[in-house]
């Protein structure tokens, strides 16, 4: 598969083939991470996170590839691993072959946002299964509300819409509570 084909697959929503192709880079990346003090487990975590960042990037219509896709992927992994090392108070030089040096700005990566997303993951684990299903179908699978209403056996499209709205409202409310709580605990510490 060429880089352009991988990108086209991702944009067409046929991510599985693209992920399989990108996974071929994993052994090398894992090697790099293990050489600089990581283990296979963290390597896999970082690689999976890097795939998500890459796919998010590629889905942006403005995204333009300026290097080989693998070089870019290596760059994201190097960035994430460096971040992780910094969290562990280490800062070794990482000299990886064929790797793009990326900054947080270039990658559109912000700790603050990642923290918020972590918080929202907690929120999502607290909403009902039905809500999760609606969110996934609507936002990830990009199904329209008619299909969702049929699939999840709502009595009408409108009741599906109302349910989705309630789910969203509940989730946002939960998120605000949670972040307020966290701020409070930080303040008392």
């Amino acid at each position, binding site marked *: 598969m060429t880089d352009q084909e991988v*990108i086209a697959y991702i944009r067409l929503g046929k991510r599985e083939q693209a992920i399989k192709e990108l996974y071929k880079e994993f052994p090398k990346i894992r090697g790099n991470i293990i050489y600089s003090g990581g283990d296979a487990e963290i390597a896999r975590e970082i690689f999976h996170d890097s795939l998500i960042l890459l796919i998010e990037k590629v889905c942006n219509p403005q995204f333009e590839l300026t290097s080989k896709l693998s070089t870019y992927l290596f760059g994201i992994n190097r960035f994430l691993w460096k971040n992780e090392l910094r969290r562990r108070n280490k800062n070794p030089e990482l000299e990886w072959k064929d790797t793009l040096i990326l900054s947080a700005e270039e990658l559109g990566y912000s700790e603050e946002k990642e923290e918020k997303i972590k918080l929202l993951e907690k929120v999502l684990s607290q909403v009902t299964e039905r809500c999760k299903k609606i969110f996934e179908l609507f936002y*990830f699978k990009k199904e329209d509300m008619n299909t969702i209403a049929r699939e999840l056996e709502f009595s009408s499209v409108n009741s599906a819409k109302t349910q989705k709205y309630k789910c969203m409202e509940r989730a946002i409310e939960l998120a605000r509570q949670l972040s307020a709580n966290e701020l409070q605990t930080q303040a008392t510490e």
Partner: protein
Amino acid sequence: MRADLHTMEQVDLYLQGKMTGEQLRQFENTLAANPELQSLVTDQQLLIQTVNRKALMAEIHAVAGIGGAPWYANPFVAVTGAALVIGGVSTLIYFMSADAENETSVLANEQTTPVDSPALTGNQTSSDNTYYAYQDSAAGTEDQAEPAFSHQSANTNPVTDHVSANSNIQTDNNPADRLVVQANDATDQASDVVDTKDTENRVSKNRIASYPKGDLALKEFIKDNMRFPGTAREKKISGNVKVKFLVTPEGTRTSIEASCFNMRDENDKPLSSAQVVLNQKIANLFEREAERIVRIMPIWIPATDSQGNAVLAPVELYFNFSLKDGNSVYRLD
């Protein structure tokens, strides 16, 4: 503020880039003047991103979990994956020849050979399965795949242009567009098959890749160089590791992938699955050491094709980390 249903739908439309013209301008004006709406947009956007990441992670895990063998992250893993895992866990795999595995891989690749129009009329998500259904005609379709491939390479740019022009391609309901998309999918598959077949043919068995000075020398090398991981020694755990890698025409090793498929206690009893989970770190240590040893080996003698040219070749080695009998290595081909 309690946002109403209508506002949230508006925010959805806005975030999906579906607002245009007057509607968009109006919304942006309201947004600029309304901090509460702004925070709703940010929250909703992040929530959507989180939903998508979660679902995406599930997809990634599904791909990564196939047969536990990302090294061969090919469609055939899905077909033979289960068989391979069982084979890897039991000693049965010792009796499976590498040839059999290669044959399966070629077969599975042929199963993905695309066919013309009938597959294109199926809907997008089920098209993969449709390909499999046509495996009977696989033998005759290679000539079709070739022209299709050149057609695809000429069209690569239009495809991506088409994609970037439509940020919401998945919700695009134009049947003509669908057909274009599918046609390109089919040709993508074609190029896959042509590529794989090429390498498959190049990996000929005329001379297999081998360790210099033969398998006995390899066993010596393992005895002398492979270390028994300290933690495993302390816990009195032995283990077996399967290592797959490619020997390049230059004799170096790449794509090294180790998996520990068996761990035993001091009485040579296999660990229970709970113990295996608890001792995952040790399994990793075995794997790292096996990978390291493959990496530091001297230059291998590469495999050759019928013309005597050095070619890329896969090799599988089985390492035995044994507290009682010392370290050893097996090869099955």
